[in-house]
């Protein structure tokens, strides 16, 4: 598995004080593939994503993108590295002081120094790709519904045509139909860009729809990784428990019984 991937994590560890969140995550995503990491709340999914993005610094281990070590990058090298990424945040994380089109165009204007008028045209085009009309571009994020905010977040993530896109719980908090709309948009957008993606979710419907490969994280370690098609016959007790949503199994929730 090691060496072939476009995104390669080897033995990534991260602790907060005495709490070990990542206990040596090893993961590989081939170029152009879509990996979905599933796992319960508090298993280290978000921390892993933040380590790859450089928002958090791993305590040890290596993270390689296209063969290049990215842990500890600083200054302009880090900016260049980040410019290859797009990210859709769980709560969309739109800048509420800016209008919708300014949000979508933000990376183009600030990161790539594009003229505002040209960035605006691209923003409107990207909004169209996620099914939003140009008029929406002039609204502010607070005026949009949750599903629309997610779509704007998606448009912002793909605005700069990134090579790698991260999706943090793309369907959490949406109704099943809107969740499916977002899933379809993700599949479409990723195909159009040919991007490599890593998503984290606990929504199995979403995982089945957008994943080429699925990995399961538990207590800061990858306990299973394989093609999405084989998820139902993984032979892994953790995966079986998770995809069937059973309370009984090897994953024990710390619930105090009365």
């Amino acid at each position, binding site marked *: 598995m090691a060496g072939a991937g476009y995104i390669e994590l080897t033995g990534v560890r991260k602790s907060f004080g005495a709490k070990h969140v990542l206990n040596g995550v090893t993961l590989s995503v081939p170029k152009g593939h879509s990996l979905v990491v599933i796992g319960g709340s508090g298993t280290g999914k978000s921390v892993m994503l*933040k380590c790859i*993005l*450089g*928002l958090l610094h791993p305590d040890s281990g290596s993270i390689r993108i296209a063969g290049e070590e990215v842990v500890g990058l600083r200054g302009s090298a880090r*900016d260049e590295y*980040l*410019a290859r*990424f*797009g*990210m859709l*945040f*769980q*709560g969309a*994380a*739109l*800048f*509420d002081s800016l209008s919708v089109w300014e949000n979508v165009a*933000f*990376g183009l204007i*600030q*990161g790539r120094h594009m003229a505002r008028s040209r960035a605006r045209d691209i923003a409107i085009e990207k909004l169209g790709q996620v099914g939003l009309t140009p008029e929406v571009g002039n609204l502010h994020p607070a005026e949009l519904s949750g599903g629309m905010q997610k779509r704007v977040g998606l448009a*912002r993530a793909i605005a700069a045509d990134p090579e790698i896109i991260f999706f943090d719980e793309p369907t959490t908090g949406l109704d099943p139909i809107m969740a499916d709309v977002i899933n379809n948009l993700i599949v479409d957008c990723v195909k159009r860009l040919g991007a490599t993606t890593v998503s984290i979710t606990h929504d199995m419907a979403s995982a089945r729809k957008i994943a080429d490969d699925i990995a399961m994280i538990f207590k800061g370690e990858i306990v299973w990784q394989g093609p999405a098609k084989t998820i139902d016959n993984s032979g892994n007790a953790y995966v079986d428990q998770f995809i069937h949503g059973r309370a009984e199994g090897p994953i024990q929730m710390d619930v105090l019984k009365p």
Partner: protein
Amino acid sequence: MNLFAHIGRATLAMLTEIGRVAMFLKDALLQGLTPKIFPRQIIGQMVHIGYFSLPVVGLTAFFTGGALALQIYLGSSRFNAESLVASIVALGITRELGPVLAGLMVAGRVGASIAAELGTMRVTEQIDALVTLATNPFKYLVGPRIIAAVVTLPMLVGIADIIGIMGGYIVGTRSLGLNGFAYIRNTADFLEFNDVSSGLIKAAVFGFIIAVMGCYHGFNSSGGAQGVGRATTNAVVSSAILILAANFALTTLLFAD
């Protein structure tokens, strides 16, 4: 034993906090105040911090100037020195009350709003989003706020000086029966350049304190709405205390001139 544990814990917590602020300050200065510059953000913050604080600061200065004139008249009339009202009002406003009261009012108004805004951006992951869009949050958020506060606070205090002296003039001439012409001449003759400039220097320092504390607490807030509320309170309280402490230090420093 328990008492020692308490003292130790409080001391450690305080030292940790000082260290954190120092680290933040380093990033704010080295990253926030070096190119690339965001002119749009700086101008926006100048309007927000400076222009919109004018009514609050103006009213504070006016009433303080008026009250000061009354008090000084009361005191000086006991030894027939009513002519001192104008000069002491001017001195008190420019050297001390103008910068301190403007600083405290702006700390309440602007420090709170900076902490609340950045705190909300932190807990809704907007600050992380900035990073993923290849924009340094120190340059985009912290730098402009510091620059705007350091530039506009002296302007606000300059205006507060004028309004405060005017408040003293109005109270002095209307209700205390002082001669208007003599009042203005006493003010103009007595006031030295140093009186005004030392107040403006203080104001710039206070502006720096307000912006840095607001940004620091906002940046480090966590835990949703409650965390943002805590950040806002801490930003106001810490900048108010630091302003008063810095005021004493600066007064000692500038006293010699």
